[in-house]
């Protein structure tokens, strides 16, 4: 008799199941708009040219070894990663109150931050502190915080389905009504899954309430540079909060903007009140890291650090990032144009207004079901599509399929 006899099969993660179903589909025109990574116009993965270059440099550098990194990670990586988020001239960096924890992608950074907050924030070990995540949000946010021990993970209003934009009034109201010291998980840019970001003016309103109500800002920054093509622009919200004197965490991922998905490169940037706070916080985070992955993998961090700190490579990287961002922008404008040309019912402005990898199409579950089953166009039940799945070759088919779906299914 097995002691694991009662272990149930875990529910599959929706986006993985979608990809698995897509793989099994034999239809010649099938399109995967649920793909989680950048694809070229040939629908191929793309290793950034600058990454290939740096990989070779590293592989040929006999001065490098494979010894354990420090628990908090490669120092050059941590510093340059935080710098890219906060800006070269960030006052917080100058005042020596910024720290970084090299993490396993954005997920790892979120988890370290969450584990730390559960132990040391708002009265020690306060697992009942409300954690607010946007409605909707990335499907893993909830689980990361609850697995870290938080018992009250709640939504804040974010997406207005009717007007297909930010539910600002609801968002601000939820901020006003949140218990003091609640934690708010904010998407730094290119909100996943809606692609809808607050404007600078709206961020200012958000920050004002958060300051007044003593709410903790935990940013998730997975798309810096990838969203608008401009690193600074994509970091505006985080830098604004820092300029207002907030203590905050920012979970950074370099999976998308460096295409380093499988090297698991992330950084938890900690902005503290002063350097003493920063050291104490980092010392406790080190203890947490020790019991999860002990010390982080070096390869991806070396690639990022080398690139960010070498001017020619940095320039080449920005160029590569712009290539990806531009292709996404092109697909957005072409999809919208085709839908409008077909006279597809509804408005499609949101496709070019939204930003980043994803678009919240506004298609309802029935329409999504039809698109998948009848047209073999795969997308999330929420109506989210990944623009990277679109190419100049499949654009017509996708536009026609959406047109057919919307006209047939209400």
């Amino acid at each position, binding site marked *: 008799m097995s002691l694991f006899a009662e272990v149930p099969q875990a529910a599959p993660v929706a986006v993985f199941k979608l990809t698995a179903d897509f793989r099994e589909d034999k239809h010649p025109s099938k399109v995967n708009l649920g793909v989680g990574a950048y694809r070229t116009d040939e629908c191929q993965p793309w290793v950034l040219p600058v990454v290939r270059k740096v990989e070779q440099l590293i592989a040929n550098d006999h001065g490098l070894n*494979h010894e354990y990194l420090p628990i908090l990670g490669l120092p050059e990586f941590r510093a340059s990663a935080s710098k890219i988020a906060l800006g070269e001239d960030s006052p917080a960096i100058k005042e020596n109150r910024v720290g970084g924890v090299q993490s396993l992608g954005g997920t790892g950074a979120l988890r370290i931050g969450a584990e730390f907050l559960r132990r*040391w924030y708002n009265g020690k070990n306060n697992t009942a502190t409300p954690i607010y995540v946007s409605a909707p949000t990335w499907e893993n946010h909830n*689980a990361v915080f609850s697995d870290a021990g938080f018992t009250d993970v709640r939504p804040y209003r974010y997406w207005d389905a009717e007007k297909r934009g930010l539910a600002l009034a609801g968002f601000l109201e939820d901020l006003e009504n949140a218990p003091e010291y609640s934690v708010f998980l904010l998407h730094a840019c290119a909100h996943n899954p809606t692609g809808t970001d607050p404007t600078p003016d709206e961020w200012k309103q958000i920050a004002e309430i958060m300051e007044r109500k003593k709410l903790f800002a935990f940013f998730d920054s997975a798309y810096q540079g990838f969203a608008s093509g401009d690193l600074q622009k994509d970091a505006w919200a985080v830098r604004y909060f820092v300029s207002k004197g907030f203590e905050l965490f920012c979970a950074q991922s370099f999976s998308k903007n460096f295409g380093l998905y499988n090297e698991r490169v992330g950084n938890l940037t900690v902005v503290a009140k002063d350097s003493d706070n920063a050291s104490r916080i980092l*010392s406790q985070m080190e203890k947490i890291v*020790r*019991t999860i992955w002990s010390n982080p*993998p*070096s*390869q991806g961090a070396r690639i990022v650090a080398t690139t960010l700190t070498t001017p020619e490579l940095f320039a080449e990287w920005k160029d590569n990032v712009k290539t990806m961002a531009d292709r996404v922008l092109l697909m957005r404008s072409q999809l919208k144009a085709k839908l409008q040309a077909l006279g597809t019912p509804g408005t499609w402005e949101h496709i070019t207004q939204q930003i980043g990898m994803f678009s919240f199409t506004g298609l309802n579950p029935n329409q999504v079901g039809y698109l998948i089953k009848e047209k073999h166009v795969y997308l999330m039940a929420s109506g989210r599509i990944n623009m990277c799945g679109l190419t100049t070759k499949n654009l017509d088919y996708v536009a026609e399929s959406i047109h057919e779906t919307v006209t047939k299914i209400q």
Partner: protein
Amino acid sequence: MAALSSFADTPTAQPSEEDRLSLAFLKDRSTEKALLWCTEYLNEEGHGSLLPMTRKVMLQIYSDPTLTLDYLPTLGLPEFTRSATELALGRDSPAIRENRAGGVQTLGGTGAIRLGAELLQRWYNVGGARCGPVYLSSPSGGSVAATLQGAGISDIRSYRYWDPDKKGFSVAPLLEDLEVAPEQSVIVLYASAHCPTGAEPSQSDWKQIAEVMMRRRLFPFFLLPSQGLCWGDPAQDAWSLRYFVSLGFELLCAQSFSTNFGLYSDRVGSLLLVLKHSSLLLAVQSQAASVVHTLWSRPPGGGARLVTMVLNNPALLAEWKEGLRVMVERGMLIREKLKERLRMLGIPEFWDHVTQQRGLYCCTGLTEEQVQFLVMTCHVYLPASGCVNVTAISGRTLDHVAESIYLAVTSDLQEYRH
């Protein structure tokens, strides 16, 4: 902006014993200083040993134009976990043939222990009481307890392992402790190369351990931190693990490829699951995926690719195994030399235990006072347990280390007694 930090009350974390030793060693200006604790296999220059083939294989991997950097599956590279499982259990293991053994790629050994702990905490014996006590050997390797605690396991106890009189492993006290452990307790066991003592149960000891554990329904959680670096032969290093599997045990095994592949910073590990039926394996793997999803989401690719390539290429495999033999021989040689130096200095007792122990670590049997003496007076740094990493003793430091130990054992250490 409010003046007070939200973290004003967060204390500075206490540095670990390992960290304190390293810091003290770094500050020490003496030319004779020696740091005898490390978790890497160090070469003569005092650096984590890089296997000769690593550079060329890594170059091959990263020069491959078809290499993409797409996410690995949550459970890791299937070829890697299959190879890791075969390395641990042997390719012809019935558990593999019956599809009831499989691996989950993890972040080194620590990641495997953490994942195993999370699974036990959440799912072990769901119908009955949640995971009861977990037993670790006394003494036990650095962060195992903390990693278990990180997963929410609070009832951590110890079983007797190191016998200070015998200066080695004694099976009788261990068996006594197992007899009184609550049924279904989890017992953490080093399959070989015990950390931190280097002391090993014999095959006949293992048989007795297995008998008690089977009878009392105790669950084995094996650690296999450096397969191949104990006896120089991966199969022999896994003998205890394979023996338990042959008896029909369900078990977990945390495998690390840090030391036996010199891939410390690549974080290559695997959590081996051996269950009664293949359907159970699938269910537990799916739950492992849920746990991984919020810990690190997916494992890193490079190191796992290298290990897979080596384990599946006959020429590279032979080269790797030869490399292991060389590393083990060097470790044994250092042990021999230390014992010989101590004998020549006229040390009062026999120091046979140094050469009887195997793997990276050696429990010297020095008392806490003697260790204090070494640290405070001789510039020789080692933890209070008296355990050392033999590869941390180089040709350059051997004489000083031996002389210091001799002094520690023969001096009157009144002032070091608490």
